[in-house]
């Protein structure tokens, strides 16, 4: 049988395993609009985003919404990634931005509708004893009283263990602003803890004072 050239241009399709891809490869895949790269970015970074959002917002369902928003923005704005190897930082920056908007939105909503912001509802508890859960709930109420920027700085520095430089980069503010916000947040929280009768009874004021 004679061999005839195909009328259709052929191309080689390589089945890329994105699980083994580097952050740089993933970022390039996202820039090209590849949904497989998005799926792998989700698998890689969604746990981090969900945990930060859960801690910041105190709600499982709100955290899930934020994660959806973050990765949708990541997909749509991937072309803005300047250094493909810094995908993690890019995801963090989007997350912080989304959290900031959500916290402002909640405050505005509370102001407009005269409603109290909801305190911690579905965090997915690790401890099962009521005392620890009560501590967590009370502390969350105090965190909700912090101004948005101070709250985010506190979360990034203390629960995510970010450095001042990393926090400043994620929040797009100067390092001195991070330090100032952190000091204010720390002072306010310490003061409120001492003034909270529920917390004061659990923490002997003299013993726990710095």
């Amino acid at each position, binding site marked *: 049988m004679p061999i005839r050239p195909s009328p259709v241009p052929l191309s080689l399709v390589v089945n890329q395993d994105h699980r083994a891809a580097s952050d740089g490869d993933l970022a390039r895949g996202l820039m090209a609009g590849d949904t497989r790269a998005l799926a792998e970015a989700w698998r890689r970074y*969604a746990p981090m985003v969900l945990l930060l959002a859960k801690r910041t917002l105190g709600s499982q369902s709100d955290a899930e919404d934020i994660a959806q928003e973050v*990765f949708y923005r990541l997909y749509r704005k991937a072309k803005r990634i300047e250094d493909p190897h810094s995908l993690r930082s890019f995801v963090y920056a989007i997350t912080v931005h989304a959290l900031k908007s959500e916290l402002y939105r909640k405050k505005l909503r509370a102001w407009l509708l005269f409603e109290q912001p909801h305190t911690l509802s579905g965090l997915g*508890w*690790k401890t099962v004893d009521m005392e620890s*859960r009560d501590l967590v709930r009370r502390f969350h109420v105090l965190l909700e009283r912090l101004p948005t920027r101070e709250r985010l700085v506190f979360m990034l520095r203390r629960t995510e263990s970010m450095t001042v430089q990393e926090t400043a980069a994620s929040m797009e503010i100067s390092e001195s602003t991070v*330090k100032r916000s*952190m000091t204010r947040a720390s002072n306010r*929280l310490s003061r409120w*803890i001492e003034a909270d009768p529920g917390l004061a009874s659990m923490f002997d004021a003299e013993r726990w*004072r710095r």
Partner: protein
Amino acid sequence: MTTTPYETKDSRALKVLTEIYSDNAEPATLVEIDRGLNSLLARVSSVNARRGRATWPIAVAALALCAVVALQVTSLIRKRMPIPEPSQLTYRVDGGRVLEGGYLREAGHVGVNVTFNEGSQFRLAPGTRGRIREVVKQGAHVAIEHGTATLNVTPGTGRRWLVDVGPFLVTVKGTVFTVSWDPLSEQFGLNLQRGSVVVSGPVSAGEIALRAGQRLSVNLAKAETVITEDNAEESGSDAVGVSVPPQPAKPEPSSSGASNEPTEASLPHAPSAKNGERRWSEELAHGQWDRILDDVKRVGIETTLAEASSDDLFAVANAARYRRQPDLARSALLALRRRFPSSPRALDAIYLLGRVEEFRGNGTTQAIARYDEYLTRAPNGPFAGEALGRKMTLTETLEGPARARPVADEYLSRFPKGSYAGSARTLIRVQSSSP
């Protein structure tokens, strides 16, 4: 953790609280990650399909205008009208007294009844250990350490009620329900007669929303969560003051002969339990899928399918799913259904079979059939929202948005805040705007 010289050091109390707070947030489970990815991909694909229709500038302008008007009106109202302060919440205790720490001690053996001034009631069954943790203007926070209690919250007062029940937290507004917790057997039960509640705690879904007539049973020891439907009309008669003892997870009725079904106790030792160990569920929770699959390979697939317990089969199925081994996942799920037809896991298996069929490529039709079966047999089961959402997505792919529209409508009416709600709204919008 590094602290720069310019930052104030945290007080010790703050340090301790921050550590407790950070450690308490549970990382996302594999189910959550999987579910989130599905929602994300569905959103991306629907938006990609609609790209190019730039109507958003008008929408944004209209929205901005509305926001400005709303701000002005609200500002005016706020100036003229003070924020209504709820009245102080007080309570009366009958049949016992309040001890230090808010603990309730019954005087006889008839239980304790706490009546609040706005009409709400908190009734402890005889022998129940409960306490009033906090009563403020905005609501009350009560706790049950073991036993059974009924709460009847007066609706419409805008107050928020929190009920700690062992490791669970029930968040309520106007509602009537009976709740029980047995710390020894680690069984939680909630029977909701009226209204709606949200239960959070150590359950796989993170948060479970219940509506009137539903009963939630959680067995922590067996890691089983079952939601069953009661007849709300019938259960309404025992709304207040009648207790329900802690009950084991109630299996769904099965059409097949359940009497021949082996129980966990009568089973031969599962492969993973041969040395008194039973780790697959634990390994699954820690993402050690390869270890489970290696065990299965070592013991033999046939032996595993024939002898493993329902929990172990479930763990094998999930490990195989996550490791992209749909044939093994399918076999494990089918074995689970065949050998434990009336167990709650068998119902979950129907849903998971749908997920496996989806993964097998040309299995869209079979997947939809599985989801339909799940929705018929467990209309309010823990995966009902997921099953309906997946069915909507697959129907749209297979038959187009017009055929998927009724499914989207049903989804939104049942799960308006579900993870597929955004996709459902998009589908309806796209379908409505198409000629």
